[in-house]
């Protein structure tokens, strides 16, 4: 069946709400479908009690979700831009992430925080960030970042079913990409990576929007007789590091690619972990592809130059092959 990343998310929410009356959706304008239409149709099917528009109060909304989750509901909240998660971090990091441990295991917080990041739409520095690496540093949170419509649906199903707080990071440029998906989506287990292309010469680990960019770079490399293996971790926490390490032990070369600023990005964690786990197998230093160290510029040519893509992945691949 043909669908889009966006529709896949909406349908995953609808399925979860049909299956479990405790699932509800909260966020700004979600009953109107939100700015992208991700939640379109939900209020008609499930009503305004379970599909709740909220005021512009990201902090309180997240706190409400934490309390609701602690009391048995399974809230799915939408924070319109990951840039605004900055307003919800006390609730997410100090409360949601720690409640289970701090209570000695009494409380569980099965909430999903859906948000989206990334540049490319000329929305400038406050609506284009990629801040997922922050969340990977917080024990108690799970962090999911799908690049495929089918994974988005399958991982959202798993996230809603998970007893822990899950941050679900979407990408605004993927929403409208049309894609073929199986008619009945299987839940995708949180913590499992996907090998999207097999190869023997180097491994490329890519996140979210950089997955397609990396596949494009792999095509170009293939034209030059180089076979790149492309892995999409899909989940950042818990990360299936073994899948990456096993691949690197075969290819002996690694490129890690994401859209977030390279400095302090999740690529650093992957690079640091792999150089330790596969030191004797690496024939070249791990190369990282990420955004340069500056805010996202508004001007179209500058934004286009700022956002890493297939060219940067290709160059990094060439560097590790040198």
């Amino acid at each position: 069946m043909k669908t889009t990343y966006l529709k896949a998310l909406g349908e995953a929410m609808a399925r979860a709400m049909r299956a479990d009356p405790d699932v509800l959706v909260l966020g700004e304008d979600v009953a109107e479908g939100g700015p992208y239409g991700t939640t379109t149709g939900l209020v008609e099917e499930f009503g305004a009690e379970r599909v709740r528009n909220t005021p512009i109060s990201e902090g309180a909304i997240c706190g409400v979700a934490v309390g609701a989750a602690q009391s048995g509901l399974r809230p799915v909240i939408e924070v319109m831009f990951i840039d605004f998660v900055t307003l919800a971090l006390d609730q997410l990091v100090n409360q949601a992430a720690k409640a289970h441990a701090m209570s000695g295991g009494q409380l569980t917080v099965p909430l999903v925080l859906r948000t989206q990041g990334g540049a490319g739409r000329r929305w400038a520095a406050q609506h284009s960030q990629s801040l997922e690496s922050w969340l990977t540093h917080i024990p108690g949170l799970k962090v999911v970042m799908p690049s495929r419509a089918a994974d988005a649906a399958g991982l959202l199903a798993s996230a809603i079913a998970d007893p822990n707080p899950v941050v679900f990071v979407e990408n605004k440029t993927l929403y409208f990409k049309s894609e073929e998906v199986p008619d009945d989506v299987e839940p995708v287990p949180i913590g499992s990576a996907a090998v999207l292309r097999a190869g023997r010469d180097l491994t490329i680990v890519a996140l979210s929007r950089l997955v397609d960019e990396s596949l494009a770079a792999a095509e170009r490399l293939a034209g030059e007789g180089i076979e790149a293996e492309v892995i999409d971790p899909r989940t950042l926490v818990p990360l299936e590091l073994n899948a990456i390490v096993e691949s690197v032990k075969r290819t002996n070369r690694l490129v890690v690619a994401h859209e977030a600023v390279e400095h302090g990005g999740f690529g650093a964690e992957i690079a640091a972990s792999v150089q330790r786990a596969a030191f004797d197998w690496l024939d070249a230093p791990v190369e990282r592809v990420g955004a340069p160290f500056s805010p996202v510029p508004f001007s179209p040519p500058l934004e286009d130059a700022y956002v890493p893509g297939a060219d940067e992945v290709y160059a990094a691949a060439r560097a590790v092959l040198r």
Partner: protein
Amino acid sequence: MAFDARAVLRTMWRIRHFEERVGQLKRADEVHGLLHLSVGQEGVAAAVCSQLRDDDPVYSGHRAHGHAIAKGAPLDRVMAELMGRDAGLCRGLGGSMHLVDLSRGFMGATGVVGGNIPMALGSALAARLRGGDQVAVVFFGDGAVQAGHFHESVNLATLWGLPVILVCENNGFAEFTPRSAHTNVERVSDVVAPYGLTRDTVDGNDVEAVWEAFGGFLDAARGGAGPMLLECLTYRLRGHYEGDPAKYREAIAKADWQEKDPILRLQRRGAAGGWFAEEEAIAIGRETADEVEEAVRAARESPFPPAGLAAELTYASPPGRSPEEPVRA
């Protein structure tokens, strides 16, 4: 619910003895961390929590011992928590600012001022969506009222008509500074006036007054008339935290305090009203002191938690692979 003077007196004494004992044990380094005692404020916890059911969710903040005890948390397990023992309410992982007793509906305390308020709304929302008649209650101080979370929450609670009662213990101080250093609005109940929610300000050291005001709110909230805000004017007898020299304010004269003390006041009132004989009050004081001693003894017997506990409880099961292993792969 009719005012139960005996029960409230017993709860207040339980808290008073507990807190005093915690102060001693802190100096003896037997309990740990940042300890915020509620000595002088017991009336609010007792009058509010005595009227709640176990399934009414209650949230508190950094000054939480009294609320947890009043909600029914076992003294020995609260004490064990402050000692960091495995028998503690949170198996020693939470400590003074993070007490939780789910079985008693004590949903937890947060050390981040104001952060507990939206969570209480969430529990209220859950009660409503699941068709229950539970009422959520959140305790917070006057300092939390200047935090954005408070306003966002009052707006949401009124917009959604949630069954939640916001109980502000206004002791006139936030840490080392008086309310006048935090806002021009003296009364917390005035701050929320625009939202048109039912609100009241009472003398928090007059337990009967707190009982009546809160009781009325509770009945209304059970009937679906929430939210409400109850401001209880009270007084913190000790420093902000144990060890705080409290130089920033002059101590209250002993006589004035005798006048204010919610426990002594209730005893005077009880004696005058013939609610209970003086001996009875004395007995309650003695019995609760013994309970606290017994709690200390029991807590001391508990071992510290197993080394791996925090890592084990970082994720609820099924936790899936802990991210640490892969990192260690």
